[in-house]
């Protein structure tokens, strides 16, 4: 993996065996759709953004080489630090919570009871509501005086925050909204649960293992490849979170109102990047932001993959 990141070609051992060559060609053929697509449609945008990051590029005029000036300027930009703090919150608070709730829901939906297909449909419903409609719904749900969330909190005697209007609670609001969309993540876990042999559970039951025990000793290891997937995708998604903030806190582009919500508490990395690229017409600067994010997230991903060797079990190995 490290080799591949540093861009080295595969270590070309001298003299491949016939078998190795055969697998090489087979691998190439199977991967060919992606390779073709990558070469035609991805290589150029991918690397041109790296080039743009070293230029001043306003979209309308040809890029002008400025070296690492953009990167230097970013290091002194307050918005950069604000946006990265906000984004880290989402990555490290929201991702684990959503992951856990998806897993929980998947297990609920795996009960073999009557009418389960109706339940499954219900749990997936939040994912089919268009963004603008669900944004309005959430401003209702989180309305400090009349919203259902605060009604409930008052009923159990907890404090009732102003949610989307209070800079301290805007990000927790998004976490709450993310929970509600965890039905989609649950679907992936549910698909994976179908592959866990029932016999394992039966055997464990004979051994007198309780629910909790079975969850940790059977379900989690069996699902670990998918947990890894959801964790990495969750992290990548969290670092690119954009739409939620744009819909909830966005002014119209170009109207002079700044994106980012109360106290800039929803100024996420991708929101800041979007603003620089398409409103301030600083595509070079935005590309530099993109590559800094790229390096950060790539490092985190590699770290996760590295540790995964200790907790992910592949049945095929």
């Amino acid at each position: 993996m490290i080799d591949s990141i540093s861009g080295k070609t595969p270590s070309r051992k001298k003299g491949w065996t016939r078998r190795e060559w055969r697998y090489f060609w087979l691998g190439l053929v199977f991967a060919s759709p992606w390779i073709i697509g990558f070469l035609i449609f991805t290589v150029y945008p991918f690397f041109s953004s790296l080039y743009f990051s070293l230029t001043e590029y306003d979209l309308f005029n040809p890029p002008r080489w400025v070296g690492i000036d953009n990167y230097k300027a970013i290091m002194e930009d307050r918005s950069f630090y604000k946006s990265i703090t906000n984004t880290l919150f989402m990555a490290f608070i929201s991702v684990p919570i959503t992951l856990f709730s998806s897993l929980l829901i998947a297990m609920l939906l795996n009960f073999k009871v009557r009418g389960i297909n109706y339940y499954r449909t219900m749990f997936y419903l939040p994912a089919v509501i268009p963004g603008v409609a669900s944004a309005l719904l959430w401003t209702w749900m989180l309305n400090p005086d009349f919203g259902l969330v605060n009604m409930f909190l008052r009923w159990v005697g907890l404090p009732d925050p102003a949610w989307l209007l209070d800079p301290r609670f805007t990000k927790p609001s998004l976490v709450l909204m993310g929970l509600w969309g965890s039905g989609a993540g649950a679907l992936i876990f549910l698909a994976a649960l179908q592959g866990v042999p029932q016999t394992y559970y039966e055997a464990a039951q004979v051994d007198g293992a309780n629910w909790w025990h079975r969850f940790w000793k059977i379900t989690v290891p069996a699902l670990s490849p998918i947990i890894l997937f959801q964790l990495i995708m969750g992290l990548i998604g969290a670092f690119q979170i954009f739409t939620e903030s744009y819909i909830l806190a966005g002014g119209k582009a170009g109207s002079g109102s700044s994106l980012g919500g109360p106290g800039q508490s929803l100024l996420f990395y991708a929101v800041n990047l979007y603003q620089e690229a398409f409103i301030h017409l600083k595509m070079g600067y935005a590309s530099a932001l993109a590559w800094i994010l790229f390096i950060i997230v790539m490092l985190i991903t590699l770290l996760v993959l590295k540790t995964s060797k200790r907790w992910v079990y592949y049945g095929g190995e």
Partner: protein
Amino acid sequence: MKRKGSIWGLVFVLLLAILSGCGGKKPAGSGSESGEPAGGDAKKEPVELSFWYGWTGTEAAALEKLIQKWNDIRPDIRVKGLSQSDYQKQLTAITGGNPPDIASNFGQDVVPWGERGAMMPLDDYIKKDNVDLGDFVPAALSSSQSDGKTYALPIAMHVSMLFYNKELLEKAGLNGPPETMGQLKEYIAKLSVKENGGKLQRLGLWPGVDAFTFSYAYGGSYYDAENKQVTPDNAGVKAAVEFGKGIWDQFGSKELDRFASGLGQYMSPQNPFFTGKYAMTIDGEWLPTFIKQYAPNLQYGIAPIPYDENNPSLKHPGNVTTSVFYIPKGVKHPDESWKFLKWLTEPEQMAEFTAAIGNLPTRTSLQQHEIYKDVPGFQEFLQYSSSPNLHSFPATSFSAEYMTEFTTQYNAILRGEVGVDEGLKRVKDKIQPLVK
């Protein structure tokens, strides 16, 4: 194995069919359809122009009506409209070399885009066809001009005025609207109501709005073109920021957030001005139409924005924003595009369109037009739009960034995260290097 192979073959054929099918549609779509010019103009193929605009829904329908009218009188130049709510499409298309022939945009984008070469300067055409630029409201036109070039023509403009709730003012013993900033401050104090141990029930005026409008009330200016200096620390701007900060601190962030949380949706009967939660508000020419629709019984008045009592020459200040039409650079038929653009901004079409969507016209000759007679509140606004103290945010290549940074720091100042001087200095430090 053979069976599976044939399935993949099928998939592949299907793939090809889809690719070729879609690819094949394109030339047919971009060319003109056969048998089109039945109107007798058989001399040459009509030119087809694409026209992208940012209005949607019923406002788009009003514009389509005008396009239809044009297509009826000019069968040789066919215009095809496309409504698109996001300007990123235009940006991408222009950069990608596939621009529309005419497009709309916000006024504040014109100079940033124009100076970078995305918009075609219209001056040669304006000169050739003797378009009288003197008829346009100066503050509206200036946002489309830079360095002697005109990059777009404004079709509609917005300006804000002071709305006040007559009943609430009377109850507080106030006679008529405030005229000066000093009076405004007193009014806000008198009209705001706290109950139950300091809980805010009503606000004279929401303190967080629009530092731009108040800057002009204090004679402020954001840019010194002669010395090429951005001036967020200008005395007038600073006075406006301090004014907002002064009201904000009377109540505090915590109480204002709490109060704001109980406010209703802007475009509904629960708009806080309609329900009396705000005694006054600063808003645009569309508000009277909403009031008529959502709160027909509201007793309200429209008044000029207060001005600095130490400087009576600043009477009737205001901040102007516009919507414009422009021709992107690199279009195939600039002459035809111009003809259509010119026609759209002629008095007759401008009157029809702005009246339909409830915006102010940018031509002074239209300010007495009877088409606006029945639009609620328009008499006050039309009259106000000829005030010499209206300004728009200075049109520079960096104005978008300037406005973003100013708004960000203004909010930080209000919330006490940074002092007034330090906040304004931050704006200057960030924006001054962008001046070329």
